[in-house]
């Protein structure tokens, strides 16, 4: 009578839809992680400035994203800013923008920490072979900072992947929402659907995030070894 829960996953296009939801999740997360990291590196470099002003501005930027929940940012950006500026951006684009800005803030802090933890004499010996300011960052400081910031960056990346579930509020259907749609649709025929669907989504997240932490551990060992 009641079909077994697991069959829900295979019914119709359900499986395909879940993967599409996952793709959206992954796309938002990865684009934001990549652009956010690049911006974060720039921000981190600027942040190491000695100027109190620049440091405070960077700090405030970070705290804005630390204190104001991402959900609020999504809301403000999607419903407030785009309307005020009279531009038409899709929910996904807005999500990418918000996540990128958030990623850049946190990444900037990580990069700053990594740069400041580099021994001062690395800078001096770079200077001593005549490297310019940019050369110093390009060849000496950033490559070393990247190694140091890896654990923090991966931590951030997995957090970003997991936080994408908020985008549903601005109409973007991520993998969890697809799961809920399936559960609700089948709630009468298959009351146990939630267990299987959530179980499957749980695994999907793990499949995305686990390789990230695995790679980071590998690289860490390689670079420290």
């Amino acid at each position: 009578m009641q079909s077994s829960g697991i069959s829900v996953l295979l019914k119709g296009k359900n499986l395909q839809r879940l993967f599409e939801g996952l793709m959206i999740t992954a796309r938002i997360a990865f684009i934001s992680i990549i652009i956010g990291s690049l911006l974060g590196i720039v921000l981190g470099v600027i942040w190491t400035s000695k100027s109190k002003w620049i440091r405070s501005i960077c700090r405030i930027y970070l705290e804005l994203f630390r204190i104001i929940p991402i959900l609020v940012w999504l809301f403000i950006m999607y419903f407030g800013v785009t309307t005020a500026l009279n531009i038409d951006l899709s929910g996904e684009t807005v999500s990418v923008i918000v996540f990128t800005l958030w990623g850049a803030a946190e990444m900037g802090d990580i990069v700053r920490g990594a740069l400041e933890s580099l021994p001062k004499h690395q800078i001096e010996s770079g200077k001593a072979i005549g490297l310019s300011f940019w050369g110093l960052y390009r060849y000496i400081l950033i490559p070393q900072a990247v190694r140091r910031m890896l654990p923090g960056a991966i931590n951030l990346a997995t957090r970003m992947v997991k936080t994408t579930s908020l985008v549903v509020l601005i109409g973007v259907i991520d993998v969890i929402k697809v799961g809920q749609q399936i559960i609700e649709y089948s709630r009468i025929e298959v009351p146990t659907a939630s267990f299987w669907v959530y179980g499957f989504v749980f695994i999907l997240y793990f499949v995305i995030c686990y390789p990230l932490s695995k790679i980071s551990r590998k690289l860490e060992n390689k670079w420290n070894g």
Partner: protein
Amino acid sequence: SSKESASEVKGSIAEIKERGKIRIGVFSDKNPFGYVDENGVNQGFDVYIARRFAKDLLGDESKVEFVLVDAASRVAFLESNKVDIIMANFTVTEERKQKVDFANPYMKVSLGIVSPESAPITSIEQLKGKKAIVAKGTTAETFLTENYPEIEQLKFEQYTEIFEALKDGRGDAIVNDNTEVIAWAKQNPGFVVGVPTLGGQDTIAPAVKKGNKELLDWINNELAALGKENFIHKAYDETLADIYGEDFKESLVIEGGKLE
């Protein structure tokens, strides 16, 4: 220059026609009112009516873009011009009227209370000091908050979750649309609908952005026209009858946009 003025008023009929698509905000996880089926297609009572709107306005029922909304973002979607109409099981309330313009209603809701047979709740008064389980963004939530603030509410996002919660004994009863609780009680022995109707006069209606009188009038005319062909009844037969049966048709449907 007529083109310019057309697109200036966002959500005006001219602009919708120029766009060739009407954007309607619906739920994607409230079976049977607005949900997505196993093939990823929007379905449900609200959706069925929305398709007809598209057909009558733009000549083709595929010329609708369903925007999947969340209870908390329904008004924001309208206010920021991201949808033209909200048809997401939107209960008409005084507070909401200040934010959006409601068209005439197409559905009545009555609330019902379902509880375990072992500890049946037979009147709303009995719930005082107890825990009522409700779904967020539904009429029941608004009703209880307004009228019975002393009843503690346990609020979940999804219908599945409220039923799970009642089964797990996390609350004393579910307050929800009576159609919903009656249908569920039928399939789940051990639970009874102690209060089959409650509240009563709440209605569900399409909403447009405040001030969009043109579209509002169009919807009202459309609902009146549909009333002539008993279209809402047809919508009931197509989308709700399977779950709720024939019994509720008259207590649910509003035809022609007018309460009898």
